[in-house]
């Protein structure tokens, strides 16, 4: 299970797991910003849906990653290695711990404790950073990459994770409340974009190394694609912020469509990120062999 096909499959499972996790967290976080007294039917179902996606994609990722760790040839090899991965590797401990945190968050959300739920889920979102390059590296570069990954995850989860719930809320809330919610979300989204751009620049310097690598390595090409998609997302978000949100409630239908499109594009970005995290960054190419 060391081939490039398996690598892409592991990455896609990781991306889907992140999408489910972000969506569950984002739904809980958005619920804390609803206008007082506002009720949006379907928010709890959406949070549980995110949990289910995170769980299923996480289970598939766990299986595939275990097979990769153990260089498994058969399903029996994977089954034998699963307990070792669960108990003794950072990957296993973090994945299981994060899913437990999301389960607790979903239960708290079910009990209408939205703030507690959002905080618990946020912890699980941020813990993912310790599975990235920065979490494994020592020294100032490791600390910088880890800090940047924490901020990057927070920005992505708050912005992209809340989009499905935002579309749902815009659809169900009365016009005035929908307008209040959209105006509240607008500066939060802008702050997330700023954080994402800043951390992406740092990660580009540390992991890609230079513009040339964008055209000569698989990691660089995928990082370039992710940046392009992020550019598309920001364009959509800017249109929502500066054109559609000020015209609410008249522009509600157009805004719902735009937010749904933004969420779909966000999913593609997360899938690309999942695969990117499986690849070797070009800034350290040439170190292998000794």
């Amino acid at each position, binding site marked *: 299970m060391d081939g490039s096909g398996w690598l892409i499959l592991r990455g896609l499972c990781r991306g889907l797991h992140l999408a489910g996790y972000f969506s569950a967290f984002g739904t809980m976080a958005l619920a804390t910003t609803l206008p007082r007294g506002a009720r949006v039917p379907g928010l709890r179902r959406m949070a549980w849906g995110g949990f289910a996606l995170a769980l299923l994609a996480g289970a598939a990722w766990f299986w595939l990653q275990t097979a990769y760790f153990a260089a498994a040839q058969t399903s029996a090899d994977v089954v034998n290695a699963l307990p070792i991965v669960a108990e003794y590797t950072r*990957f296993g401990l973090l994945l299981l711990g994060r899913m437990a945190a999301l389960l607790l968050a979903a239960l708290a959300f079910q009990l209408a404790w939205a703030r507690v739920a959002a905080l618990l889920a946020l912890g699980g979102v941020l813990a993912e950073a310790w599975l990235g390059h920065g979490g494994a590296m020592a020294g100032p570069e490791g600390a910088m990459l880890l800090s940047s990954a924490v901020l990057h995850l927070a920005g992505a989860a708050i912005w992209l994770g809340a989009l499905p719930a935002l579309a749902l809320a815009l659809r169900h809330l009365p016009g005035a409340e929908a307008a209040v919610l959209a105006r509240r979300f607008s500066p939060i989204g802008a702050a997330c974009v700023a954080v994402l751009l800043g951390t992406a620049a740092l990660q580009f*310097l*540390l992991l890609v190394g230079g513009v040339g690598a964008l055209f000569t390595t698989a990691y660089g090409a995928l990082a370039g694609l992710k940046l392009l998609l992020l550019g598309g997302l920001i364009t959509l978000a800017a249109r929502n912020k500066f054109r559609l949100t000020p015209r609410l409630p008249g522009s509600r239908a157009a805004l719902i469509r735009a937010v749904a499109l933004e969420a779909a594009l966000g999913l593609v970005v997360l899938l690309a990120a999942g695969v990117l995290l499986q690849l070797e960054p070009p*800034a350290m190419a040439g170190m292998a062999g000794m």
Partner: protein
Amino acid sequence: MPVRHRFVSAALGGLILLSPAAAFAHAFLKTAEPGVGAVVAQAPSQLLLTYTEGLEVRFCTVTVQGPDGAAVQAGKPQAVAGHENEMTVPVHITAPGKYTVTWHALSVDTHKTEGRFSFTISP
């Protein structure tokens, strides 16, 4: 220069200064005892391998081949308490000559790397 421009310039300058030419985003061998290419008089009872990243030692493998091609490692790699980027490998070396170490490492960020080096025992 306006204060805002100075701040942006300082931030960018700091970022460039802080960024190394290469970040070690997978586990690569940093040092070894005996060292890479070293000639030592006394045969070690174990090898100590230090990497650029934390290791999942249970999924790391190391083989050590003697001058006759026979494997001389005497057990699986062991974690070093308090040093997640190190592992030791017990060896049973009885003859002088060139020994080749082939390692496969799994880092805590789930990536695999591999490499090879040699050292020589020359009493």
